[in-house]
């Protein structure tokens, strides 16, 4: 938590009594990293400085070819139709957003001239509008100027239901207006603390009005530019074969100095993650391999004497075990896990606490995730300013046993604990996925030692994660006692992520299990905290509210966080890619270069 002293220091920087560097030094002295200190300043309303400049090349081009290997290749190149990150990654080679995210989750300028802040007048104090200034002199690849009209057009294009843009959720509830040729204003219908969704990051890049204006609405599929993008980005479009290949070449008129470094870029699709890792790390056929979800010991073996290495980016993805607060084995009005029931075993806080003590996060990390995982006690693991420091985790079979003993759960004749005739037997489900089944085995073993009988179940991923109403095996039905998976945190902001567990959003038969609160945990304090956070414009107070929300979950043991998962990529030894856990892999491509 940030106290009064910190606030007065931020005030000092704001008013010029202290310079940024001194502030950052003092923060470092109390153990905060420089990027975090920078972020605190930004939160406090001090304009964000551009991150430290790491780009070394002193001229444009001359870097030869950059060969990227995506084991799922892009299938289309219009960001508004992108069904997955692979499509966003492909279109991001050519199209650009106003700003992107750096590895620390800070905003970085791309097509915008400055980051909106309260200080520069870009952010309205009431949180209901944001004004973006555009970089002057930016040209589309065909030579036409990039202006505010293009930005406004993207909003009109995406929000039109007839266009069937998959970005409609971002643009539907906002209004975008042109102030002048190089200024746009976004109006929100309620205070919006996280205003950096529209036009920011790889999913929200901007397409040219002059090529798409005739294809807004029902004719959206027919636009020739859907297959041959004309953007503002560092590379110009050359060739596209869906699922197989995207090729680009250096844009000589690119708006950033000395960039890009590479003369051509090629993104090849297909195959699987292991062979992608091999082609980059072991044989060096490719410079970069995307999303290398491979067990760490395989990667370590490939890395021995190889031509490449793995790199990691920290985001906010948490692999967790969720606890069911309702009874999956009793049917009420034709519905299992009904809100009218209480879980016979897990409603005892001692059982939930004991289970948390029985998850050996360190062993899971050592045996499975290796460098790609971090142990954690928190459900919310990023961005850093939202991460609670008030929690801790422990693995102890003795403590768990004592806790259960004290709560009256005594081992029966078969060694399994029981109380009031109820046996401590739990069903623990997850999707089929190597690391997940291994984790299940580790947890089961510890539980057995503590006298808890755990039955394991695994469901095919395509079923487990589907929204199929008729299928009882989806994670939202949660007809088990425990279940494990992760929900990706796709923005460097927790708002979308944390509101899923409001008590109004419980997944039930009535809402066809489309509710997002699948543990069916109801806590008035949590609801009030999230509600307060969603309209809190003071960033420091807002961060404190989300930390409180996380701590409420921790106290009630709604989730047992298993690992804070990192993004894993493979890169040639001499390649210097910039990868952010908060952005797509190609979001910072203009800053990539090769060390000679």
């Amino acid at each position: 938590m940030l106290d009064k002293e910190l606030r007065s220091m931020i005030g000092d920087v704001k008013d010029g009594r202290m310079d940024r560097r001194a502030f950052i030094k003092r923060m470092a002295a109390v153990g905060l990293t420089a990027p975090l200190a920078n972020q605190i300043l930004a939160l406090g309303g001090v304009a964000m400085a551009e991150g430290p400049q790491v780009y070394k090349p002193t001229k444009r081009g001359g870097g030869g070819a950059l060969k990227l290997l995506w084991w799922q290749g892009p299938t289309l190149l219009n960001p508004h139709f992108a069904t997955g990150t692979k499509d966003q990654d492909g279109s991001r080679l050519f199209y650009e957003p106003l700003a992107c995210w750096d590895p620390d989750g800070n905003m970085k300028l791309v097509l915008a001239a400055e980051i909106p802040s309260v200080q520069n007048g870009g952010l309205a104090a009431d949180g209901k509008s944001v004004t973006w200034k555009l970089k002057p002199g930016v040209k589309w690849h065909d030579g036409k100027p990039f202006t505010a009209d293009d930005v406004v057009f993207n909003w009109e294009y995406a929000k039109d239901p007839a266009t069937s843009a998959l970005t409609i959720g971002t643009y539907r509830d906002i209004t975008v207006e042109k102030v002048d040729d190089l200024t746009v204003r976004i109006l929100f219908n309620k205070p919006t603390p996280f205003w950096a969704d529209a036009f920011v990051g790889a999913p929200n890049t901007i397409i040219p009005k002059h090529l798409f204006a005739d294809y807004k609405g029902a004719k959206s599929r027919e636009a020739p530019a859907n297959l041959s993008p004309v953007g503002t980005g560092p590379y110009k479009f050359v060739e596209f074969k869906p699922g197989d290949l995207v090729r680009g070449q250096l844009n000589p008129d690119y708006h950033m100095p000395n960039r890009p470094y590479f003369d051509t870029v090629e993104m090849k699709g297909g195959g699987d993650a292991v062979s992608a890792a091999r082609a980059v790390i072991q044989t060096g056929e490719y410079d970069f391999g995307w999303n290398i979800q491979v067990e760490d010991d395989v990667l370590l073996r490939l890395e021995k004497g190889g031509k490449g290495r793995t790199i990691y980016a920290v985001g906010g993805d948490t692999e967790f075990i969720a606890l069911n607060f309702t009874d999956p084995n009793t049917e009420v009005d034709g519905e299992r896990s009904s809100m009218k029931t209480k879980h016979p075993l897990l409603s005892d806080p001692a059982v939930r606490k004991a289970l948390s003590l029985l998850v050996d996060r360190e062993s899971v990390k050592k045996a499975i995730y290796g460098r790609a995982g971090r142990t954690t006690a928190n459900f919310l693991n990023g961005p850093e300013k939202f991460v609670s420091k008030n929690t801790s985790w422990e693995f102890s079979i003795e403590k768990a046993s004592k806790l259960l003993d004290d709560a009256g759960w005594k081992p029966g004749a078969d060694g399994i604990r029981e109380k009031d005739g109820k046996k401590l037997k739990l069903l623990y489900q997850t999707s089929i996925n190597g690391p997940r089944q291994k984790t299940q085995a580790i947890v089961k073993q510890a539980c057995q030692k503590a006298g808890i009988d755990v039955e394991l179940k695994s469901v095919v991923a395509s079923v487990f994660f589907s929204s199929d109403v008729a299928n009882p095996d989806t994670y939202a039905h949660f007809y088990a006692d425990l279940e494990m998976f992760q929900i990706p945190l796709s923005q460097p902001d927790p708002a979308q992520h944390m509101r899923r567990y409001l008590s109004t959003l419980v997944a039930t038969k009535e809402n066809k299990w489309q509710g997002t609160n699948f543990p069916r945990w109801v806590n008035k304090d949590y609801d009030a905290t999230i509600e307060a956070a969603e309209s809190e414009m003071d960033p420091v107070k807002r961060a404190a509210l989300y930390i409180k929300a996380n701590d409420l979950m921790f106290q009630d043991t709604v989730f047992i966080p298993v690992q804070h998962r990192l993004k894993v990529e493979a890169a040639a030894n001499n390649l210097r890619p910039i990868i952010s856990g908060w952005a797509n892999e190609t979001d910072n491509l203009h800053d990539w270069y090769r060390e000679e």
Partner: protein
Amino acid sequence: MSQYVLRRLLIAIPSLLGISVVLFVVLALAPGDPFSELATNPNVPPEVQAALRAKFGLDDPIYLRYLHWLNAMMHGDWGFSFVSRMNVDQLILQRLPATLYVIGSAQILALLIAIPVGVYAATKPYSLFDQIANTLAFVGFSLPTFFTGILFILIFSVTLDWLPFVYTTDIKGTGIHWVLEMIRQAIMPVAVLGLFQAASMTRFVRSAMLDVIRLDYVTTARAKGLGQAKVIVKHVMRNAMIPVVTLIALQMPAVFGGAIVTEQIFRIPGIGSLLISSILSNDTPVVMAVTFVFACLVVLFNLIADVLYGWLDPRISLR
């Protein structure tokens, strides 16, 4: 002869129609739709998913959708991919060269090995050559292509660093350099697929030859004093080739199917990998088109086989 070909062609049309109905119904009844992936994306409201379904005609009854498809197909419109929103014929044409090049070369390689080895082994049954050829053939068709593929990669790419294991369609350079690179990157997939095919074909050629070589007319030909080469090529091979032609012709479409595995391993952007990725993403128009092309190929190669029979044994076309 021409009447025979015409008759065969006329039979092909109802078979293709029947096949298309079956394919269409199976695909329509299969679970999952191309937009199910959007269900877990918080940014995509359910209305958008519903609008897309309506827009792409997924809510119409099956028979209407089939008639619509058939009508469009008659006019040469293959529909468009739900996933890449590109026309399906364009998508297939993009993938065709790689498939034809790699699979075609593999098939030629298989024939070049199987026919001489099979024929020679049959002329000297149970000789040392025959036994070695037999053993290798057994080993060859017992090893699946995904195993030999990875073995080749480990030996020739990782250990020896001679050959690339990722197939690229856009090799830079022109002229002889381009040709050499194209050959270099195809060596491994062609070898994997070709050797697998050759193994089973060798066995087949050998036994077909052995069947014929013992017939009386062959002995007669020898007794007349004809040279060994002439007897084998003119008298034995021509007759022994009839079952071999059937095998090769019927194997042609199957090669496309078998190539799915090889295409995945070497990242060859061919029809097989297009089919796999389309099935995984429930991209029905593409799956329909590709499987229908396979069906057409089966019918076409059957036809070719029939015509070849007529040429090899004129009695067949008279019947």
